[in-house]
């Protein structure tokens, strides 16, 4: 038995070491990004990767950018609960692009990271479940199903030694129309692989509305600017009428989809702004929120 225990202890030491290496080399960075936000604001922007290009520019206008890569409505719900408890939040600006309701967002999300904002004693899950997610999956990345993907991406980035954003900034604007179409379609195929909308995400979105209403937090829904090419192709894929969904709930919608149709230099790819676009859009977003009425359309035409 002693020999067995000795070997098991050695294995656990090795296991902890491997976890520590993975955590500090790959995972910790993503967690730090996720926690880096201003807790003193009253207006919070919550989106997925579309909000990332805005960086901290909206801070100058009193809007805290609380977006993160692949945040789903499940993650946003957790973050909203956290903000209600920890800040003086009065208003949330939330992204409602159609792909946010697509089934693929059920799998591609940040539930392993947004657990940071969940209390162990939250009402959403049992204390044991939350403990497991908040501490074991969080600090032992071997148990976190997203960690191999994070490692692969990081290693790929290290090897290719270039930032995706800057590479695409140069690329999107200089692409030919057919190359743009190819990229748009390939992205849309991922986003709308399944024609069905996720009931789970629709439910979480409904919960966000109900939590906000209960806590007197105003919701403003926005559609992020997208490139003209992507928009044209989106029409072939899109199925869900999110506007209808929101109008029923009497939520303000600001549609920015078409605002930069003639300015592809503002995009890093088909549907993401780059740094310049992010700065421009931050100003526009601030103006629009200040002037927002029941429904505003920023259509070019």
């Amino acid at each position, binding site marked *: *038995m002693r020999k*067995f225990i000795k070997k098991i202890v050695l294995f656990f030491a090795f296991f902890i070491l491997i976890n520590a290496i993975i955590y500090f080399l790959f995972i910790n960075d993503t967690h730090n990004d996720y926690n880096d936000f201003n807790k003193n604001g009253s207006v919070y922007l919550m989106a997925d990767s579309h909000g990332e290009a805005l960086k901290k520019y909206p801070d100058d206008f009193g809007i805290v950018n609380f977006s993160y890569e692949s945040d789903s409505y499940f993650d946003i719900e957790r973050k909203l609960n956290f903000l209600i408890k920890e800040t003086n939040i009065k208003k949330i600006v939330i992204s409602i692009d159609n792909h946010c309701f697509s089934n693929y967002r059920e799998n591609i999300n940040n539930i392993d990271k947004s657990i940071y904002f969940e209390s162990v004693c939250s009402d959403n899950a049992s204390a044991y479940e939350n403990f497991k997610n908040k501490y074991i*999956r969080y600090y032992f990345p071997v*148990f976190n*199903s997203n960690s*191999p993907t994070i*490692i692969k991406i990081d290693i790929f980035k290290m090897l290719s030694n270039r930032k995706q954003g800057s590479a695409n900034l140069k690329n999107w604007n200089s692409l030919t129309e057919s190359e743009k179409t190819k990229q748009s379609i390939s992205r849309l195929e991922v986003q709308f692989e399944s024609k069905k909308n996720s009931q789970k995400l629709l439910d979480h979105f409904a919960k966000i509305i109900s939590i906000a209403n209960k806590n007197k937090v105003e919701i403003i829904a926005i559609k992020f600017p997208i490139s003209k090419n992507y928009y044209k192709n989106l029409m072939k894929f899109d199925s869900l009428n999110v506007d209808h969904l929101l109008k029923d709930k009497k939520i303000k919608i600001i549609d920015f989809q078409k605002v930069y149709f003639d300015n592809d230099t503002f995009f890093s790819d088909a549907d993401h702004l780059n740094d310049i676009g992010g700065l421009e859009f931050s100003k526009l977003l601030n103006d629009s929120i200040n002037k927002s009425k029941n429904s505003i359309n920023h259509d070019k035409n």
Partner: protein
Amino acid sequence: MLFNSIDFAIFLPVVFILYWFFTNHNLKLQNLLIVVASYLFYGWWDWRFLSLILFSTLVDYTIGVLLSKEENVTKRKIFLWTSIIVNLGFLGFFKYYNFFLDNFKTAFTFFGGEISSGSLHIILPVGISFYTFQTLSYTIDVYNKKLEPTNDFIAFTAFVSFFPQLVAGPIERASNLLPQFYIKRKFEYSRAVDGLRQILWGLFKKIVIADNCAELANQIFNNSGEYSGSTLVLGALFFTFQIYGDFSGYSDIAIGTSRLFGFDLMRNFAFPYFSRDIAEFWRRWHISLSTWFRDYLYIPLGGSQGGMWMKIRNTFIIFIVSGFWHGANWTFVIWGLLNAIYFLPLLITNNNRNNLHIVAEGKFLPSFKDFIKISVTFSLTVLAWVFFRAENVTHAFSILAEIFSPSIVESPKFFDLKIFALLIFFLLIEWVGKSYHHPLHILDSVKSRLLKHTLYLLILFVIYFYGKNDVTLDFIYFQF
């Protein structure tokens, strides 16, 4: 509780420590710990169904005690049939009630009648088919006086609910497992180490092989109408490896876990896809169920004693019942029937016991003849799995029609190189270790620690990077 979950990763060491360090001095206490741990393990899914296991345990324990005191043949038969009716009654209600009702309604409508009774929304308790057969083996063995009935209720409860094999087998015989609860278990280093190796291999089979194949098999079978014959063949192939990896992976983890606690469970799989004929396949696939049917159904029916027709009849009964055991769907019945048809030529020509030993024993490569035999047997098995996986009989026939159409020569979709590389790695390890209880057992004879640890690390690496760490993918056999 799933074996491939964080819950089990916490549960197992805690029970292990309590078992060997806190209760080892007292056998009764140690058995009681197994009962509590097993009930916790099962209750993790749905604690309400614990009452079923407890009731089944009480009934069979009581009947065992009554049988020990009764010599009157009629009364003994009544006791036996009480146990059979109670156990199969539960199984029949939870598993087959809606199936029989729906088929009865269909038949009634076919003959012009009308019936308005609706189906019930019945949840199938996990593992009911497994523990029902396990407890039945006890009563039947006691009735046949092959086994002394137990007076130790705790040991009997532990035997019925023993957590490693409670929900998906191996279906243990009382004569093998129950006596192990009567004696003080001794910790053996080599047994525990080998148990851990078997757990590692089981996890690899489940997380890497079964779950990766499941993703593609589900995609292809769920949208079968959209794909060519060649893609459907690929789908059937993925399912073939999914079901093997899933079920034998579970058995490996169950057997390995039991060994950590000083128990030896029966072998459930013995490299079935290396079989040279279908009879050998069935001696190597789900051994605990096949031998259960052999001992408690085939032999009582007369086995092979009553001439050729009797043998054929009994063989068909066994295969069809075995198919039906898997689920309340005609697809399983046809799957069983198809296997019986495959078996028939071997039975008639008395060739069903030709290949009793593993292929190419002591050699690295099989002979050309054996290779052809393995390929034919494997192909027949793949074809039969189509019925097993299909939603219904029409679905299965539509898939087969497409497979045997000109679209078989089209280039298949889902030709994923990563999966094929993983399958080759998997088959290679299984082939090299085919003469052993489980493939990694071969490492016992390897002296180089470096080689051993490199292989362990490689398997762990593949599990981490290529495994599907998705606990929503249950073990297939939980539904049976």
